[in-house]
């Protein structure tokens, strides 16, 4: 605590150690202000907001620089929905102490939330409007405004109180009590709400024999009734103009019927037609969307069917490749039949013919190793005999100067027995005699290469030299 006169820090004595000013009374005022702040704080903690406001305002009346009390008062006002009052206290607090003041944070929080500020402002305007309606005796309009604003800002306590007062005025005691209970939920000791509740108790207590209409009836004689969400107010004291005679009434009825029919034709009917057309259009659009979806699904299914057919054709071709004429299984059967026939004593020629048929029908390299092994075994067994037969026939043809036949037979003889040097040598001779020198030279080279040192190789070299020298 500092001296009000010179600003020096005060001691426990009742005078200022610096300027000797009497500070006894000043200290008592500050102490009382602090006590009232503590009282306000205690009340705020138990939600006695009305009591807290009273204590804090007294504390500030004693010491306007009691910053904590002012900030707390702002918070209590804010809780009561009195945002403007809260903001006022915080602004004053900020002006009294600029540094380390929570009021700055409160103001910033509020100002940074523009939508919240806007909602609060709107609710305050609606409250003021409702209050004006009440003053103008338009409580029904005030009620509507208050309900709207409480849906936006349910914390505005004074709106609950005013609405409760209107309900009491309209003898809607249960609804009034509900509003007052909402007030007490926020402010447990709200004086006005408690007083109204006590009055309500008196009004609704069935044992109270002195119960009487405490609230005056509405001044105007009107009939109020609820139609959906709207409150219809109909004056009862309106005097209907009297018609002069019965004929005028009939004319009026006829005019009314004609006008009604015209209104139906020009206003109601087009609206109905438009409504039905819109509904139909919406249905057509919906069906079109369903149709598009189905068409797309059908297209997808057709594509799937096409793909599956293609796959099926491919698989059928593969199966035919295995099972059909010239297929793998067919060739295997042929080879097995040839082997079986050979084992049962078939001749070399018959076996060779079967092997020739197989080799003509299939690419041996594409067959399995077991197939090739069996084929080669059979060929090795019947090959030399077959080669001898072909050689004898080929050599006979050669001697008869039937060189084409000789070449064919001697080629087979060498094919079936690669060691048959005579067959290869005479094949070269047959080519030479037919003056096919290219094939003759290549055949002689083969003899020289495969059978070096053999007498036929020596002679092949001589013939080769002759061919090369002559050509």
């Amino acid at each position: 605590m500092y001296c009000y006169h010179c600003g020096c820090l005060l001691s426990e004595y009742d005078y200022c150690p610096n300027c000797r000013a009497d500070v006894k009374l000043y200290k008592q005022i500050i102490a009382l202000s602090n006590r009232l702040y503590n009282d306000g704080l205690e009340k705020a903690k138990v939600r006695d907001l009305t009591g807290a406001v009273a204590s804090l305002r007294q504390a500030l009346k004693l010491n306007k620089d009691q910053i904590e009390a002012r900030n707390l008062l702002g918070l209590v006002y804010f809780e009561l929905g009195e945002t403007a009052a809260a903001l006022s206290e915080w602004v004053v607090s900020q002006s009294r102490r600029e540094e380390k003041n929570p009021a700055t944070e409160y103001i910033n929080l509020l100002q940074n939330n523009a939508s919240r500020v806007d909602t609060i402002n709107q609710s305050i305007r609606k409250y003021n409007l409702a209050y004006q309606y009440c003053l103008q005796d338009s409580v029904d309009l005030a009620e509507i405004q208050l309900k709207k604003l409480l849906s936006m800002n349910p914390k505005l306590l004074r709106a609950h109180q005013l609405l409760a007062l209107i309900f009491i005025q309209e003898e809607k005691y249960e609804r009034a009590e509900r509003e007052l209970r909402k007030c007490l939920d926020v402010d447990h000791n709200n004086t006005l709400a408690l007083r109204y509740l006590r009055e309500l108790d008196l009004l609704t207590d069935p044992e109270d024999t002195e119960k009487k209409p405490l609230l005056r009836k509405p001044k105007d004689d009107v009939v109020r009734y609820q139609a959906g969400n709207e409150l219809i107010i109909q004056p009862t004291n309106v005097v209907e103009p009297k018609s002069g005679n019965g004929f005028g009434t009939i004319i009026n009825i006829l005019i009314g019927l004609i006008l009604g029919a015209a209104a139906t034709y020009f206003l109601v009917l087009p609206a109905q037609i438009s409504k039905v057309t819109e509904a139909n259009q919406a249905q057509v659009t919906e069906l079109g969307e369903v149709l598009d979806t189905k068409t797309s699904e059908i297209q997808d299914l057709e594509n799937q069917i096409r793909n599956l057919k293609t796959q099926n054709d491919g698989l059928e071709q593969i199966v035919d490749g295995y099972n059909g004429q010239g297929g793998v299984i067919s060739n295997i059967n042929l080879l097995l039949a040839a082997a079986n026939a050979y084992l049962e004593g078939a001749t070399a020629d018959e076996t060779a013919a079967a092997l020739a048929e197989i080799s003509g029908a299939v690419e041996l390299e594409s067959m399995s190793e077991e197939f090739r092994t069996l084929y080669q075994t059979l060929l090795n067994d019947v090959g030399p005999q077959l080669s001898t037969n072909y050689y004898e026939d080929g050599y006979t043809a050669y001697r008869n100067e039937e060189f084409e036949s000789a070449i064919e037979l001697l080629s087979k003889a060498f094919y079936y027995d690669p060691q048959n040097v005579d067959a290869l040598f005479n094949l070269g001779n047959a080519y030479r005699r037919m003056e096919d020198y290219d094939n003759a030279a290549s055949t002689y080279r083969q003899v020289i290469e495969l059978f070096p040192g053999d007498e036929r190789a020596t002679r092949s070299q001589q013939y080769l030299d002759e061919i090369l020298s002559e050509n």
Partner: protein
Amino acid sequence: MINFEEELKKFNPSLEIGEVQDAVYHLDLTDATDMLMQMLKEQGEAIVGENPDQNY
């Protein structure tokens, strides 16, 4: 007994947020310490007027 008109007089329009600045400007912040100082000042002047040698 509640009288609507009488009760209505106890309510008053609420201050809008835009009006806070003006309200704060016109706020009377005089407190008890101000009044005390004023009293002491007046008292001091009176005392000084009676005895010019004494001063706070």
